[in-house]
């Protein structure tokens, strides 16, 4: 590969990366949460309790006997697996009807809280809350992601060797680059898949021209031609079973438990014990991965498969979904680390009070990256703390989310970057550490109780919140406000030794390079072993690795090189 191609791809990677990274980070984090949006909604409706289908059916029947004994028909919507709402409805002879949502564990009627739940993240993920044109930004971000991945692979010539290089203890700058590299390689196929399939979800909004060329002003013909109805077996249709009310009441487990999941029970004329009961079940789910049941047209199969990959519809069980969730987190870390490296490189060696592009990006990094986490925590806190019976609670929760983000952004712009990082990371740590506690205090559902009740969503929520808190806290502890001072002093010292002004010599430790130069090459061929333009990047590694190259020698290397050019 030619050096100029490598260089232009490195330039492209940095340029596209820094332009798209805030947007991509936001899309990644909210998209990762959206994998579990029904579970988040469940958590944000603390009056809901998960229960087994037979328990739910028993509760529902008891409540129906109490509230509508003379009804002509009853209906029970059994709790879904991921969003367990138990609902009953009835219709009397004169046509009047009613319904209630019940606590599945004891059959008491409950009022569902007014919340957007996980759907806030789900819709923000691709609309950015800008109705009508937000999707153009997310589409551009997905495209930039593909460009950044490709140019990043090309730019990173020593992909495999560096994958095994993680030097967290050595230097903070180098450590962030290593984090960026390792996380980039770790989930590489996921990034390509998620960015490309993201574009496919809105295929004809982004690229309608082929459709326009072939179908003119009759796009509906295309949709009926290309996506014909399934003609295969009808095995995937919902199943139903018939029994009597007496039999169902006596042994609900025999009728509503088991797989595929029972979703609805309809009872005709419940006044008689011999009333007819029909139990509808969900589509059969053989194992973890749902079979593809679409059309036979290969291109629409391809299209639907790509679409379903993006929304993880194929992930039947929680484990595949968790793997995707983990990939999303790794991707968010990758984007954040890349941004940090870029800003550190740009603001390296400058006075912290001087406002350069790098310094502004560094400050906004704090506001966007930490700010989003603060906003998410605030959203959950608002859900637990807003007074019951508040009008339009969902609106206030969403306002809390955006207000917290805006405040974090202003705070980040006003602070020196290191201070901003430390304070906001502590804010993230405290907010997430307190989340399980405030939830336990306001709902009475604490972690141990959730473990005992087998409520996986609540347990996972508490553990994840604490994991985020610990990560943010340990990062905050690692940050040293005075980290730049010795570097600057060393820089001055090095410049003085070779009789130059500090401005004429690139700072020693503040530059982070993508290249690693073998010291033996430098020893054998001297300065000429280094590529011309990236001299500044190499002495960092030579110095950091400490293989016989003294710091002042490294500074001299740069200066001498410049002198030659002059």
């Amino acid at each position, binding site marked *: 590969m030619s050096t100029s191609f490598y260089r232009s791809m490195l330039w492209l990677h940095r340029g596209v990366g820094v332009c798209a990274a805030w947007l991509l980070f936001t899309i990644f984090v909210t998209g990762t949460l959206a994998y579990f949006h029904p579970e988040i909604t469940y958590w944000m409706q603390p009056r809901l309790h998960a229960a087994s289908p037979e328990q739910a059916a028993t509760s529902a029947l008891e409540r129906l006997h109490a509230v509508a004994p003379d009804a002509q028909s009853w209906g029970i919507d059994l709790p879904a697996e991921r969003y367990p709402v138990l609902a009953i409805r009835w219709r009397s002879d004169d046509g009047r009807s009613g319904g209630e949502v019940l606590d599945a564990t004891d059959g008491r009627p409950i009022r569902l809280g007014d919340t957007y739940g996980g759907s806030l993240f789900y819709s923000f993920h691709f609309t950015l809350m800008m109705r009508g044109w937000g999707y153009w930004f997310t589409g551009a971000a997905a495209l930039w992601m593909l460009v950044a991945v490709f140019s990043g692979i090309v730019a990173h010539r020593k992909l495999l060797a560096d994958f095994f290089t993680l030097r967290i203890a050595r230097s903070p700058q180098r450590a962030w680059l290593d984090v960026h590299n390792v996380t980039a390689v770790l989930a590489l196929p996921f990034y390509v898949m998620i960015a490309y399939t993201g574009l496919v979800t809105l295929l*004809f909004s982004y690229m309608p*021209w082929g*459709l326009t060329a072939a*179908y003119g002003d009759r796009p509906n013909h295309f949709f009926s031609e290309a*996506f014909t109805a399934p003609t295969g077996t009808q095995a995937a249709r919902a199943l139903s079973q018939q029994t009597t009310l007496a039999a169902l009441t006596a042994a609900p487990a025999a009728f509503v438990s088991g797989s595929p999941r029972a979703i609805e029970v309809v009872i005709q004329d419940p006044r008689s014990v011999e009333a007819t009961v029909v139990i509808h079940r969900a589509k059969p789910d053989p194992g973890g991965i749902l079979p593809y049941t679409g059309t036979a047209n290969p*291109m629409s199969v391809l299209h639907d498969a790509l679409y379903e990959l993006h929304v993880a519809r194929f992930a039947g069980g929680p484990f595949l979904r968790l793997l995707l969730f983990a990939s999303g987190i790794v991707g968010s870390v990758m984007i954040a680390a890349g941004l940090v490296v870029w800003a550190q490189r740009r603001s390296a060696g400058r006075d912290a009070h001087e406002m350069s592009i790098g310094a502004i990006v560094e400050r906004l990094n704090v506001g966007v990256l930490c700010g989003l986490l603060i906003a998410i925590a605030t959203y959950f806190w608002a859900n637990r703390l807003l007074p019951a019976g508040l009008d339009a609670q969902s609106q206030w929760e969403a306002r809390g989310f955006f207000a917290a983000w805006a405040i974090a952004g202003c705070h980040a712009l006003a602070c020196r970057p290191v201070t901003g990082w430390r304070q906001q990371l502590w804010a993230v740590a405290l907010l997430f550490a307190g989340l399980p506690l405030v939830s336990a205090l306001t709902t009475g559902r604490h972690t141990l109780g959730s473990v005992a009740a087998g409520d996986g969503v609540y347990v996972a929520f508490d553990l994840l919140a604490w994991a985020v808190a610990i990560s943010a806290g340990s990062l905050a502890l690692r940050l040293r406000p005075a980290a730049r001072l010795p570097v600057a002093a060393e820089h001055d010292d090095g410049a003085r030794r070779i009789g130059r002004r500090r401005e004429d010599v690139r700072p020693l430790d503040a530059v982070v390079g993508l290249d690693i130069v073998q010291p033996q090459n430098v020893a054998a061929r001297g300065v000429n072993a280094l590529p011309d333009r990236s001299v500044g990047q190499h002495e960092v590694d030579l110095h950091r690795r400490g293989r016989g190259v003294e710091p002042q020698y490294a500074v001299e290397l740069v200066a001498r090189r410049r002198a030659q050019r002059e």
Partner: protein
Amino acid sequence: MRHRLGVVSRCLAASAGGYGTAAILAMCLSLTLPMPRGEAVLLASLLSFLLYVTAIVWVFAARTATHAWIGLALVAAPPSMIVAATLLGR
């Protein structure tokens, strides 16, 4: 200054030029791929994003911004003619 103009020109070539090239190729493939019309449109549209990414990479890898524009124009010209001929011939 000249360098900056080159960068601006390349950014334009990548975003607008790349999109235009990908769009014209999608149109051409939709009209010419040897398969039922609906499938051709789907395949062409699915491929168009990969073509767009390739165009962007090419624009930034080209020696100068002018080269980048010329390259895009050369790639887009034949399919444009095919599309124009097909649509006008209807």
